[in-house]
């Protein structure tokens, strides 16, 4: 669906993928902005007393632990993305399959995992997958963070499947015909012609999904995985549970995620603009 040369003075059709982050403030000013906000929140209680630490001191004191928690979040998100992408590629190809039955079943699976809330899926995996499985007489323990990773991988799978399907569908059908006339089999066409062309189109939405996963990993704290948010609550308790510590501590978590996700989003937007099909 390409727009023709001259523009009529009418309502333009909606572009499915406009440059997403056209609202932007530079990364540096953004970081400074966040930092200032936290500093301001901390200094408000700087004179809390000689024995108690100021919120900023608390954050500095505990930041190694909190950042380790954050690294764990990132590890979970990367693993979930890896699992989800592999499974999603398979599911996406199944969506495009010529067999009606396979396409219908995979459509159902995709819709199911796309429309269920992430937290519900996480509960689903956490409660229904056993804490260890016995395979060929060897018992493999499944720690809760691995289960959480699988829980995040499920919606990723469905979203990646949709991305794959959309990208393959967006390739002009003449490519299929050309491949057919060169006597490529369907599988060869898919792997040698379609998917290589799709990678460029899939990359921005795929990175978008990654940013969403990275932000969703904090949900694991609800089901008891000791990632950053759990540690934040524990640090708060360790510092005597002073209510004025909540805002700086959670602000620090916000800042960490912001500094991680915002560059990804800016990069995604740039790729999207560059790959935009006109």
């Amino acid at each position: 669906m390409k727009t023709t040369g001259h523009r009529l003075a009418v309502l333009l059709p909606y572009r499915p993928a406009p440059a997403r982050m056209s609202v932007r403030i530079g990364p540096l000013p953004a970081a400074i902005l966040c930092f200032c906000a936290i500093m301001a929140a901390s200094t408000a209680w700087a004179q809390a007393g000689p024995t108690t630490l100021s919120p900023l001191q608390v954050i500095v004191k505990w930041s190694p632990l909190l950042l380790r928690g954050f690294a764990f979040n990132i590890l979970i998100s990367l693993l979930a993305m890896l699992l989800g992408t592999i499974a999603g590629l398979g599911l996406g190809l199944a969506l495009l399959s010529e067999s009606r039955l396979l396409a219908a079943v995979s459509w159902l699976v995709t819709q199911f995992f796309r429309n269920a809330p992430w937290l519900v899926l996480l509960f689903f995996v956490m409660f229904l997958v056993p804490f260890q499985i016995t395979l060929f007489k060897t018992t493999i323990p499944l720690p809760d963070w691995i289960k959480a990773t699988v829980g995040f991988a499920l919606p990723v799978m469905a979203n990646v499947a949709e991305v794959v399907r959309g990208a393959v569908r967006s390739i002009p059908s003449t490519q299929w015909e050309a491949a057919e006339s060169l006597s490529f089999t369907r599988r060869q066409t898919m792997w040698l012609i379609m998917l290589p062309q799709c990678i460029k189109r899939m990359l921005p939405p795929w990175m978008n999904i990654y940013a969403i996963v990275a932000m969703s990993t904090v949900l694991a704290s609800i089901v008891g995985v000791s990632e950053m948010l759990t540690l934040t609550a524990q640090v708060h308790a360790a510092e005597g549970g002073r209510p004025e510590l909540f805002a700086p501590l959670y602000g620090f978590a916000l800042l960490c995620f912001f500094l991680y996700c915002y560059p990804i989003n800016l990069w995604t937007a740039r790729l999207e603009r560059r790959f935009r099909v006109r």
Partner: protein
Amino acid sequence: MQAIGDWFQRLYDTTGLNFSVFYDAYDWGRYLGGLKMTLLLSVTTILLSLIVGAIGALMQGSPSALLRLPVNAFVVVFRNTPPLVQLFFFYFGLGTMLPAVEAAGMRVPLLSNVQWAIISLSLFAGAFNVEIFRSGIEAVPRTTLEAAEALGYTRLKAYIHIVLPLAIRVCLPALNNNLVNLLKTTTLAYAIAVPETLYAVKQIWSESQNVFEMMVVLLATYGILVGILVWMMHRWERAMHIPGYAR
């Protein structure tokens, strides 16, 4: 109603599948309460987030950088941080800073957890709506705005009566997506003990020991809720359809 209850009771007796919500009046009441809370959260956050989005998009299009900058910062920050941490930041961080009020002889926080959930989720979804509305507003041709100006509309009036109605029609598909997402995000309120569906269902399964069955009920519930929302949005899309424009 009685027949359904009996059927599920018999199902439990014969197969061991314990769908206690359908025959146990107490569980049913809790489930219904959770459902009501989810509906309340969804409806209010959808409406508020639309308002946030509309106001934000208006401010973003303003010529003054003083208005644009805060909106841009708001959008960038809320889009790039986890909604759960936002919720905690609001509820624990800001909630404890607000003064408590006297109510019925007890000191209660100024804003309850339900109210904080509504505020936080509306702002989160609102940040996305700002972007969506902006893309819609950009699609409205310059000439239409000029025509409105020629007819003597002020900027605000032109926005309310001309630009926004057109923009909403253009960005409905994207809006649809975001609102479905918002409905799913209301489950996060669970984390601050808002008794919505997930919370109620978890209570039921920890007392009745029927995790699997309740999980099925839970997934079905959200499936149906999302289905209803999508159906309504599609109907709205059709009703708002501009003749002769894109299908």
